[in-house]
């Protein structure tokens, strides 16, 4: 069994502002973040593809209380984006004052990926991480 797209490969691409996913050769669904099987039909017949990194904001929150070690990041806005290829993805929003993020200004609005925010890691995280980061489309 070949694991088609590992976390490390996904993260390294994301650091280059590229969003990788998996295209199911059985049902056509796109899976992101990656896993062993297709999210829809559980087939292992998958091929890596690069996604457009664009979609629509489904929901958001502006977070004022962070985890230990990340206190200096607040306030920040987290999104769930419905990507054009279908999957929903968690990420951050930049270019909008977090204090001014509202349902009216964000939900349903189109976003595209910009420079990826890096989480340098903490003592629990087994290394660094990368968060897909979005801006509102002009």
């Amino acid at each position: 069994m070949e694991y088609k797209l590992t976390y490390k490969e996904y993260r390294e691409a994301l650091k280059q502002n590229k969003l990788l996913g998996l295209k199911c050769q059985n049902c056509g669904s796109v899976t992101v973040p990656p896993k062993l099987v297709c999210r829809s039909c559980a087939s292992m017949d998958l091929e890596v593809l690069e996604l457009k990194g664009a979609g629509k904001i489904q929901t958001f929150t502006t977070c004022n209380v962070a985890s230990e070690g990340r206190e200096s990041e607040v306030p920040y806005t987290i999104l769930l984006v419905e990507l054009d290829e279908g999957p929903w993805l968690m990420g951050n929003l930049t270019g909008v004052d977090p204090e001014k993020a509202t349902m009216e200004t964000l939900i349903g609005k189109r976003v595209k990926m910009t420079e990826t925010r890096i989480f340098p890691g903490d003592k629990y995280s087994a290394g660094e991480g990368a968060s897909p980061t979005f801006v509102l489309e002009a």
Partner: protein
Amino acid sequence: MRKVAVVGVGETKFSGPQERTSVELFAEAAAEALTESNLKPKDIQALYLGNVLGDFSEGQGSMQAFAAENIGCFNVPANRYEGACASASMAVRDAWMWVASGFYDVVLAGGVERAATMGTPLATRTFAMFSDSRYEFPSGITFPAVFAMLAHLYAAKYGVPLPKLKEQLAAVSVQSYKYGMFNPQAHLRKEVTMEAVLSSFMVSTPLQLHDCCPFSDGAAALVLASEETAKKLTSKPVFVVGAGQASNGPLANQQEYLPRLRARELSAKQAYEMAGLKPEDIDICELHDCFSIASLIAAESLGFFDYGTSGEAWAKGEADIGGKVAINTSGGLKAKGHPIGATGAGQVYEIAKQLREEVEPERQVEGGRIGMTDTLGGDGCTLVNLILQRGW
């Protein structure tokens, strides 16, 4: 499968940070459950213990073995369960299964946690471990942020204007605080008004401090016995008549199903089908109100109210004593508290006490016959439901 009964329950007061160890807290709850059951430690054949963060709160792993020995259940098989906030309910369900199967006759189940002892920064970090550490934690996700996003999604999907939803959510918290006032076991025992909820600190938009449950220390325990054994131990057995459990992956992967949590709907369906009961048969429910919005989402998926309408139901008293179903008469996670590894066992404790009509008069449901628990772990990654029925 044999019928299985809860024959005795025990619980510490849920509280803020305190100095008793996890093993000591569990011992208090276990001793009470054993005494109620008219049993000695040597009668217990196995221990199933929920404990999530002992490793972080006091540097203690393998809590189950130390807890078993401490209470005199020497050398019994002891299992620890980690399903985030649903851990104790997983333990109770497995204990039920082993007694139902005939392998054991008498099992002790429960849980313990010292979430408050960790303090807010470490507790926030460790609770975020129940989200996807690789694909979601880099964004800075926290547990309040998960439910905050579900609150905005709920408002958008069901067309409830946010100011109206905020008032409905405040009413949920006010009801929980009201019952917590009359529950001597509760962590937060104070009257909180709508105005106080709506003017409290904004944790993660749109959820404010009084929309969120506290981090609590505490323990709960119960003894499960086969029907035949139960008859010899108590005149008031509370039978486990339905049980369900399901899992789900990271939050974003639940996509268009949100704000509903699919695992809950699968778990509840299993429990209802096993019991041969419907939502309208439930008199009392302890559901997982880690955040006020979580109450609305849970009540709808459990079938008590239509999607998008449970805020109105709370406002009309339909989720209160005397309404359609009495929800969180203990004060819920909001006021009773949330020592995560113990929470599910604490819910069973409340239902058993309610069915036995042993709670304070201000929060007693008269003549209740059937109760239900609903326990959620993580972003919907573990869901457990139990249905309990009075056996006399």
